Each structure stands twice: as structure tokens, then as C-alpha cells.
């Protein structure tokens, strides 16, 4: 009861304070970065930031959906590794088959996550921590622990392809975020995810099939991880069974800096987008200023504390 009340209060605070705060912080960061380094406001640099954040960015779409439903998915980093292995293994036979196959595999893993979650009633942290290990093992066994060569050059080139001076992946990300935004805001399933996340009991009483919504949420998360995995494969030009470690926390970081509530029911994918680029720009400006790369995690850690702390304490 106490927890629920606290959550309700937090939700009120979230919605009243964060609507304008985050865009403002975003603009301040942009101005500050531009003031600090003349190299910041160049097309080349923006391209670096976008391509560098793309995998996390795609992943963060799915993570936002899962967090809104009140759960978490720690297995997405391993799913990226598995996708890249499946992709690289199948690609020599047929590129189309490889793409469809790897997306199918990640969709299935998402479904399995969802089904296990609803059947076993385990906390999602524990369940996805377990499937994180299982999926990673699967990737390692299929690839026998070695990088898989065989990604065709045409596919590898996609990650740095440019259309009209803008990286192709930027368009892809915009489409992803628009789709997720539309899905969460205007579809029945999307609205149900908010309902389940804010109070699953009242969602159930109002006729929502909570289990089906949760399974669908994880299926989406899996599918999105597959898409992120395809981009990752193109970016590293290999199937890497031990790659993409800890990517899930990067995606979670973008979502929570964007103000997605950890208790579910609250979060906007547009804000995740802002969160993603606030992190991307902070890392970038530290690089441009010649600060040791080892300072980056410290900066991100402090950023998380400030972002979440300020938001929850504001009353």
C-alpha cells in the first residue's frame, strides 16, 4: 500500500515536472557543448554521435516499452549477440533468409521471456538475468566462441551509408522512434501497456488481459533487440557471440534519464530519445575536450543520479 501510494505521488511529480524540463536540459547541453568546443557543431561530429548511439538508441525504444509495462529486460544485450551470430552464420547462404531468421529468433526469445514471466510469476529482473545467461550461452555455442565471419560487404556498408549527408541509420532511428511513439500513444495494445504498468490489478479488472499484454511487451522488446542486433552486425561487420555486453544498461540509462519511471506506467519514447542524445553528447564533448575516456562512466553515473534524483525529489 505504502509503496503504491509513494508510486502514485511519484507519478504526479513526474508528469508535472518533466514535460518541459528535459527538452530544456537537452537544449542547455547542446549550447554548453557548442560553447566549449568549436568542433561540436559540425556535420561530421553529429554523424559520429548518431552512429555511435544507434545500437543503444534502437534498443532503448524496446526498453522504454518494457519499463512502461512495469518490468525490465536484461537479456537484450545477449540477444544482440545471438542475432549477430545467427545473421553472420546464415548470411553466406542468403541475406534475406539471414535477416528474417535473426529477427525471428529474437522475436521468439522475447516471446519465451514473456511466457516464462507470466507462467512462473518470477520478478522480471531475476528472470531476464537468467535468460541473459542462457541466450549468451546459445550464441557462444552456435559460434563455438569465435567471431563469425561471413557478413557480406553490402550489408556491412549499410551502417555507414549516407543519404543526403545524413547517415542512413539516423532515418532508421527516427522511423523507429515515430513507430514506437505511435504504438504507445494510439494503439489499444500501447494504451494497455500504460494501464498494466501503472496498476496491473485495476487493468485486469477493467478487462485487459494482463498476461497477454506482458507477453506482447517482451515480444516487442525481443524484436527490437533483433533490429538493434542487425545494425550492430552491420557496424562491427562480424557475428560476435561475446559482443554487446552490458548494452542493456546503456538502453536503460537512456530511458531513465529520459524520465521513464522505474515503477511502470510512466514514460515517453520521445524523452528517451532526448535522454539518449544527452548521454551521447556528454560522452562526445568529453572526447572533444581531450578528457580521459575513463572519466566518461563517472560523468554518466553522476548524470543518472542528478536526473533521477532531481525528478523524484521535486515536489
Amino acid at each position, binding site marked *: 500500500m505504502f509503496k503504491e501510494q509513494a508510486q502514485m505521488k511519484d507519478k504526479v511529480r513526474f508528469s508535472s515536472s518533466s514535460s518541459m524540463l528535459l527538452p530544456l536540459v537537452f537544449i542547455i547541453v547542446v549550447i554548453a557543448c557548442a560553447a566549449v568546443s568549436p568542433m561540436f557543431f559540425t556535420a561530421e561530429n553529429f554523424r559520429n554521435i548518431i552512429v555511435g548511439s544507434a545500437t543503444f538508441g534502437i534498443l532503448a525504444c524496446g526498453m522504454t516499452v518494457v519499463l512502461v509495462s512495469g518490468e525490465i529486460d536484461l537479456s537484450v544485450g545477449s540477444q544482440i549477440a545471438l542475432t549477430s551470430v545467427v545473421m553472420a552464420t546464415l548470411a553466406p547462404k542468403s541475406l534475406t533468409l539471414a535477416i528474417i531468421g535473426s529477427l525471428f529468433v529474437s522475436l521468439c526469445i522475447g516471446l519465451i521471456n514473456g511466457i516464462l514471466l507470466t507462467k512462473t510469476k518470477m520478478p522480471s529482473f*531475476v528472470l531476464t*538475468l*537468467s535468460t541473459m545467461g*542462457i541466450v549468451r*550461452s546459445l550464441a557462444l555455442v552456435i559460434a563455438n566462441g569465435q567471431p563469425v565471419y561471413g557478413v557480406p560487404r553490402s550489408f556491412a556498408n549499410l551502417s555507414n551509408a549516407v543519404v543526403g549527408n545524413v547517415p542512413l541509420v539516423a532515418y532508421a532511428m527516427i522511423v523507429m522512434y515515430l513507430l514506437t511513439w505511435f504504438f504507445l500513444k494510439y494503439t489499444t495494445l500501447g494504451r494497455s501497456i500504460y494501464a498494466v504498468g501503472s496498476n496491473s490489478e485495476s487493468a485486469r479488472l477493467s478487462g485487459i488481459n494482463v498476461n497477454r499484454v506482458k507477453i506482447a511487451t517482451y515480444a516487442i522488446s525481443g524484436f527490437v533487440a533483433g533490429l538493434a542486433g542487425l545494425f550492430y552486425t552491420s557496424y562491427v561487420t562480424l557475428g560476435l557471440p561475446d559482443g554487446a555486453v*552490458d548494452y542493456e544498461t546503456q538502453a536503460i540509462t537512456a530511458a531513465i534519464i529520459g524520465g521513464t519511471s*522505474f515503477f511502470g506506467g510512466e514514460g515517453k519514447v520521445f524523452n528517451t530519445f532526448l535522454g539518449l542524445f544527452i548521454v551521447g553528447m556528454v560522452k562526445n564533448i568529453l572526447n572533444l575536450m581531450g578528457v580521459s575516456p575513463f572519466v566518461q562512466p*563517472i560523468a*554518466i553515473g553522476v548524470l543518472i543520479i542528478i536526473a533521477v534524483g532531481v525528478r523524484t525529489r521535486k515536489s
Partner: protein
Amino acid sequence: MNKTSDVQKASRSPIPKFLAENSRLTVFLILLIVSTVLSKGIFLSPANIHNMLRQYAGIGIMAVGQTVVILLAGVDLAQGSMIALVSMVVAYLNVNGYGIVLPLIVGLLVGALGGLTSGMIITKGKVPPFIATLAVANICKGLATLITQSRPIYGLSKELLVFGRGTIGGIGIQVLVWVNVALLGIFILTRTVYGREVYAVGGNERTAHLSGINVQRIKLIGYAFSGICAALAGIMITSKMDMGGPYVNLNDNVQSIASVVIGGTSFAGGRGSVTGTVLGTLIIAMINNLMNLMLINPYIQQGIIGIIIITTVTLNQRRTVSK
């Protein structure tokens, strides 16, 4: 339906009932028998068991601290990075002529401080434990690499190597440290006021608060204890490896949480024990040891641990649901 009939079936005779009620112990015993049979007895040799215990002492020590935090309905994701930070701090001070006492004290203080920081962010900043400890993990990781720009530190003094390599009465010192930390954990949780307050806060924070427990203080001490345990594990690992390593092994943190969860401590807080956690660590250790003995592909180890977590937690929940 199945759930109740399972328990009813089991309750007819005392031994199956006991095993059904102690699913961890059952898993442990089954593993023990399977390991012994499959390895043709090698598993039970004192040398093998001693090796296994030495290998998992670090994880075991971390897991004791993690138990307290999870009992408080939290989680500590900073332990893995804390190991790296403490390892670097201790090695740096030791190599630069500060002997071994000062580095050890500073190392433990760093652990306590890191844990207190997590605790402060959680209690004062009202930040969820996952996020707070994730942030602290980032900060520790950064600090660990900053000390030497991510280069390991070699050339530790001989006295420091005692913890990882020395023995007392034939038993590795790190194993003895693990045993003592576990006993301390059991003592704190079952025999002290603080321990009872941990269960109260984890079970229901509001009730605990209303009955006059200082919830913030309980949480601060809990996270500090978890940090100190991680620091101790870091010292053991540094001593065993004979170097200060700035690299964060994410798997350490996962195994620490896995030990607690396999050990039957509820992630919702308030239910569980250090005894269970020790069994949890031993189960993980046995699985990995058996796979090494059987020359089974090491790639599947993480997966097997995942399957064990899902199985034991599900069994555990069935039991509580059917009660």
C-alpha cells in the same frame, strides 16, 4: 491445481516432505550425487573441493552482502565495479610503499564509502536501488580505470599475497574468510536487533517505519555492509591474481545475485537467509566445477546457471503459493 497435489503427495512421508520444503538443499544434494557419479569420484577428492571453494570464495563473500541488500528489497549492482576499484586502490597503495595494513584499511573504507553512497542516493534521493547502484557502479568503474589509465598494477608485496594463496591448517585463507563472513552474516541476521529490523524493513517498509524503526539507517548500514563485502572479495581476488586489475567482470555481480536468488531469498525482500545464499554459491560452484571436470564446453555455464535460477525460484514460489 498441480501445485497443491505435489505438496500433498510429498507430505505422506517425512523425507520427501523435508526435501520438498528445502528445494535448495535438494538441488544441492542431487548435484552432489550427480557430480560424484559423473566424475567417477574425482569431485569428492579433498583437493578438488578445496580448489572449488578457493575459486568461489570471492563470489561467496560478495553474496553474503548482497543477501542483506536483497532482504531489504533492493539490489547492489555496484559490487562488480567495487571489486575493480578496491583492487586498484589496494594494489596502488601497496606498490607505492604504504605496506599492507594501510592499503587494506583504505580498501575496506572505499567499499564502505561506496555502499554508503548507494544507500544515501536510495534513501535521501528516493532513487530506485537498481538505478542508484547502477550509477555508483559507473562511478567506481571510471575511478578504477582512472588510477593507472586502465593498466593493471603488478609487483605486489609478498605479505599481500597471503590472503589469496596462504593456508591455515591446510585450508585456504580466503575460504576461511568466506566462512567467517558467512557466519557473521548469519549472526547479524538471526541474533541481532539490526538483523530483525532488516527483515521488518524488507517485509513491509511502512509497518517497520510506523513501529519506530529508523528505515534509512537500516538501509544505509545494509548497503555499506554489501560494499565492505565486495571490498573484501576484491582484496582476496587481488591477492590471488597477484595484481591490481581495473577490469570489471560483470559476471561476478551476476553470480553474486544468482547465489542469493538460488539460495531462496525473495527478490521482494523480507524473506531469505545467508545459509541459503551459501548453498546457492556452492550450487553455482559445483555446476561450474563439474563442467570443468567433465570437459564440458565452458560456453554453456552461464546458460546452466540461468536454468538453475529459473528452476529453483519457480519451485520456491510454488511452495509459497501452495502454503
